[in-house]
């Protein structure tokens, strides 16, 4: 039970911000910012996620343990993603992939379905 009671009005304001950010991200996707598109989209998503976590999920006013748990989980996912991507990028020319760059739809080239 948090000692601080968030006012109902705050929740409405947060919803407003979330909706505005959603509109923003859709509009931004219509422009071509090159490789910044990904950064903008994920950045806005992270702001929205933070609003939900801090206000709707009460992380702002709860005891710190909840936030520690959440951040630890997110950090672990970050470690996993980072190292996998580093490794994947570092072996882009690994001959594990077929020589031709295009991939073929499975219906044409994969053997019959195995029993499962």
């Amino acid at each position, binding site marked *: 039970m948090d000692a601080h009671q968030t006012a109902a009005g705050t929740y409405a304001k947060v919803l407003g911000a979330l909706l505005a950010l959603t509109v923003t991200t859709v509009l931004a996707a219509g422009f071509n910012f090159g490789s910044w598109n990904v950064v903008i989209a994920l950045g806005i998503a992270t702001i929205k996620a933070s609003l939900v976590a801090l206000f709707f999920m009460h992380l702002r006013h709860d005891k710190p*343990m909840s936030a520690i748990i959440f951040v*630890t*989980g997110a950090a*672990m996912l970050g*470690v*996993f993603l980072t*190292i*996998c991507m*580093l*490794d*994947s990028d*570092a*072996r882009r020319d*690994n001959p*594990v*992939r*077929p020589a031709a760059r295009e*991939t*073929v739809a*499975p219906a044409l*080239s*994969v*053997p019959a*379905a*195995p*029993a*499962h």
Partner: protein
Amino acid sequence: MSDNYLSSPPGFKSWLTTVDHKRIGVMYLASTLFAFLLGGIFAILIRIELLKPGHNIMTADTYNRVFTLHGVIMIFLFIIPSIPAALGNFVLPLMLGAKDVAFPRLNLASYYIYVAGALLAIAAMVTGAVDTGWTFYTPYSTTTNGSVGMMTLAALILGFSSIFTGINFIATVHKLRAPGMGWFRMPLFVWGLYATAIIQVLATPVIGITLLLIIMERVFSVGIFNPQLGGDPILFQHFFWFYSHPAVYIMILPGMAIISEVIPCFSRKTIFGHKAIAYSSIAIAGVSFLVWGHHMFVSGQSPLASVIFSFLTFLVAIPSGVKVFNWIATMYRGSISLEAPMLYAISFLLLFAIGGLTGLFLGALATDVHLHDTYFVVAHFHFVMMGGTVMAFLAGLHYWWPKMFGRMYSEKWARVSAALIFVGFNVTFLSQFVLGSRGMPRRYYNYLDQFQPLHVFSTVGSWVLALGFLIMAGYLWASLRRPMDAPANPWGAVGLEWQTSSPPPEHNFETVPIVTREPYDYSTPEPAEVRT
């Protein structure tokens, strides 16, 4: 006979619907010991087959299934749940002075989920071939016929059992400590289980999604791991080992935690470096997430990743080393007595040290190229998992047996068994270091004639091991048929679990304990047989 958790409430049905952590622990104990028996039988069969090259008692295809099943059963059905769910469930609330874990109904649910997963795994075994190895590497696992889908689904279900145990333990440690028990008055067994629980919660979901993806590949050919479709089989290995490496620390941390309990008691001396050991458990849990790629040095992983992983692997050895030194320092100038729990603890020290040190050869890139997928690896992990965790499990089992069941066992036969197990284990597995470094590959059905003498030697060791365990089964069973006359504190140990009767009453303590004494405070001598 006064009422205790075994007899009260009465009736078989009350066990099926129990939320008593002690009863749930006992049910887990029975189940995991059964799984150990099953996995052990497969091990004996493997070793018999390997008495000579080529066909002995089974075909090559059957051999692949047998070692797969040995691995799956031992890892998912025995070793991961064993210490936390069987011993931990029983002892942790008692050690904290609590009446139960934080979520008793979730505890029962996690047991039933374990049973469901185990039954599904057995069904997969009998209805089809699972010969992928317990590692389920793609593309073989995603394209081969057989009941791979069923087995991966079983492992997924078992994972949830593990997750729920972890959630329960973390919440319990945070919120249910008795008055006066600050974090550093908590026994080290609890610290070990807490660190383990962190890994269980963070890592297990990733194996969950990995197993799900295997099923998706088999059913839908989604393509993520299939090189023909533009996927990446090395990515599978990343996914798999991101869990499975921390998983081995799920296996060893509780074992180390038991050693931290047994050694002070049987040295009648306070543990050396209490805080260091506590922190090292957390450190191991944290670093364990950063080293998974050391299973993948020859997989085609990038050299960059390999170098990073190798360096971090050396780091993770440090906190383990801290523990080993602290345990030895605890024994130094202590008053050592060699009852069964201590015999297993000392075995642990030696065998885990060997296992851990041999891990360094595998963590170093240059040597791993030669040793990967040889019997050296097999020997290494059996030394840490069996010479380590199983020895610790046996130490804990014998240490808390009187508390759990109210009876002592035959100390004489326990020592015979411990000796046989120690000798048998070393004969079986030391020889495998030699086999591996000389080039004998693992998972091979056939082999060059020059390896036969060592294989025979190893197999004979497995028979000595089996004999040791059979004798153990015998005297433990005999113990259960004795009258319930064990004292509350047969070992004169320090800890809240010894302040209640053996076995404890249903609600754990007659009066809520208040902690005033420091843990492992053996400075005031307590007679070995203490009043109830």
